[in-house]
């Protein structure tokens, strides 16, 4: 797919791209520095001293969560697979419903900062902590790589610079803002970036719809936008759809950068309020990539055949408008895309750095900074060595992996006092081996054609239950290892804070 981007038709004017990228990078660093001035203690640095208000926090969660897969990938996938692609934004949003129902308030009350902290406090075992830490780091790296691929694509299309510039620029800006400001300033940056991303999609769509309406051009081309046969992917089977939905629903509640945000809430009740606001913010946001995808099916259909569907959002405004208006709107979507890579990557780097620094650098601020560099550089190397797949799809496999590993640990840890350290480790390893194996095999032999290999391509429907069952069975078999503190910890997770 690389070659498609080097011909002129698929490029915007470089000046537009440069302006957008420089503006986003500058505003990110400036807000980071502003945040630094009010970030005084180590507590501020790690968890913003747990005093972030629900609206700020929810905007920050939205800003962090809406990644390249949401901003570019959803529209791209709608272009190439039509109605089946709508399951991705549904899963990305409803994942927060599951998080609200099962995890938000208890996890906040656990007082742990990272998932490994929670695992250790709950199961009283250092080995569980180690295993969880390793899984969290793997998840984080796997999730950063598609962000960097998205950055490579955006920079290539908007400026014509070589592919490696995008990922490098993202990593440099992220390291600068994370290393200087920590969590407190990142909260401001992320909150700003949610609203930037929303504006960057909403304003051009409003212009486009108005223009099409004013010209008397039918917006859905009499319904052919929905029926047009652009599909380059096999039609999703019922198994594939359900498996994907399970992965997205239960994968969200194990994502390290999502969970770390909940510790910045003052108490359990506000953690719930925050999640409720997040659901509203995500529901509003995902309407826009959907509209881009539908419009793309009429106005940029050739991107499907070229395998560059992820560029739909970036190129659509320029197709409808010429000259100055087109340039300004293109600059806006480019800025939004860049904000998406920056915010998700920095959220992941902060949460990984939290885990790595507590594991290896005794949790000091200097250690946090070193860990942050480490967490950003390794995915950079991976991203530069690999080629991009469809963004929404590759993020989907990461969700399947967290749903098969960290999700059972959290759900059983929070709700079932019978969980033991041996059970937790066995379940997480079973999920990791099966799901990781399925993803690796699919990557090696390529996606199957039709139904025969969909069970490998969408493994969540069998790997998630297997992980849960393994965890329960092994815990039952090793019931003697149940930590003495289980009842006390559970009481603490579920009882409301004193009035």
């Amino acid at each position, binding site marked *: 797919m690389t070659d498609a981007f080097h011909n002129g038709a698929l490029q915007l004017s470089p000046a537009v791209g440069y302006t957008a990228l420089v503006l986003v990078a500058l505003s990110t660093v400036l807000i980071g520095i502003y945040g630094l001035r009010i970030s005084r203690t180590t507590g501020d640095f790690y968890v913003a001293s747990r005093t972030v208000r629900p609206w700020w926090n929810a905007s920050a969660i939205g800003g962090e969560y809406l990644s390249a897969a949401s901003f570019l990938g959803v529209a791209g996938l709608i272009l190439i697979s039509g109605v089946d692609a709508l399951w991705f934004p549904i899963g990305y949003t409803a994942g927060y419903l599951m998080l609200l129902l099962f995890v938000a308030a208890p996890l906040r009350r656990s007082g742990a900062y990272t998932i490994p902290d929670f695992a250790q406090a709950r199961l009283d075992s250092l080995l569980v902590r180690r295993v969880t830490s390793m899984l969290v780091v793997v998840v984080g790296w796997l999730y950063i790589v598609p962000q960097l691929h998205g950055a490579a694509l955006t920079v290539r299309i908007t400026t014509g610079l070589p592919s490696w510039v995008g990922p490098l620029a993202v990593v440099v800006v992220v390291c600068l803002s994370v290393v200087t400001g920590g969590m407190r300033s990142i909260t401001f940056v992320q909150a700003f970036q949610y609203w930037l991303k929303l504006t960057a999609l909403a304003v051009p769509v409003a212009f486009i719809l108005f223009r099409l309406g004013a010209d008397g051009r039918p917006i859905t081309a009499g319904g052919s936008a929905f029926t047009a046969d652009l599909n380059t992917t096999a039609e999703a089977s019922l198994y594939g759809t359900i498996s994907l939905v399970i992965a997205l629903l239960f994968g969200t509640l194990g994502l390290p950068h999502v969970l770390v945000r909940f510790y910045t809430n003052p108490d359990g009740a506000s953690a719930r309020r925050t999640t409720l606001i997040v659901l509203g913010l995500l529901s509003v946001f995902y309407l826009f990539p959907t509209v881009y995808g539908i419009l793309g099916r009429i106005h940029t259909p050739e991107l499907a055949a070229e395998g560059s569907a992820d560029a739909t959002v970036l190129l659509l405004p320029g197709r409808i408008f010429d000259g100055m208006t087109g340039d300004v709107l293109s600059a806006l979507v480019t800025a939004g895309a860049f904000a998406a890579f920056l915010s998700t990557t920095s959220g992941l780097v902060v949460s990984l750095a939290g885990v790595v620094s507590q594991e290896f650098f005794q949790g000091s601020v200097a250690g946090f900074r070193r860990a942050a560099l480490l967490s950003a550089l390794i995915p950079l190397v991976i991203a530069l060595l690999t080629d991009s797949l469809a963004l929404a799809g590759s993020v989907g496999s990461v969700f399947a992996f967290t749903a098969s590993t960290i999700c059972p640990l959290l759900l059983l840890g929070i709700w079932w006092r019978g969980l033991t350290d041996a059970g937790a480790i066995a379940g997480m390893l079973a999920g990791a081996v099966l799901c990781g194996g399925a993803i690796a095999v699919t990557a090696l032999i390529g996606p199957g054609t039709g139904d025969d290999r969909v069970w490998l391509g969408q493994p969540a429907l069998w790997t998630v239950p297997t992980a849960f069952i393994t965890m329960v069975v092994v815990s039952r078999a090793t019931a003697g290892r149940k930590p003495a503190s289980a009842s006390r910890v559970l009481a603490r997770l579920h009882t*409301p804070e004193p009035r």
Partner: protein
Amino acid sequence: MIPGPSGPPRRIRVTAPRTAARATGASFPVAREMAEQSEVGQLFVESLIRSQLRLALVVAGGFLVILIGIPVLLAVFPDINGVTILTVPIPWLLLGLGIYPLVIGCAVLYVRSASRNERHFQDLVDDD
């Protein structure tokens, strides 16, 4: 480093994990902890956990049945795919627009009921 009783917020050194996890428990009043460790307190806590879990499972189950019901319905009655409103086919409307109010509705319902369960628990403990 001994903190003064007033003045600017003191610097907190975040320490290695084992101690950090324990230290946060300090904010939990002793009297309350005692109440929860008593036999009656234990019963209250257990019934709170059970009702919260039941609530979460009911909301999640209802949502999942509706969600998974959509592709099943479309698979069983493929004719629905042909029905359109203002040129937009029904499946696109359901999946692109209709699900989101459902998600938010479930969330509001849950937050209300979960807070009610907690208030109920607090009343019991405080009376005790």
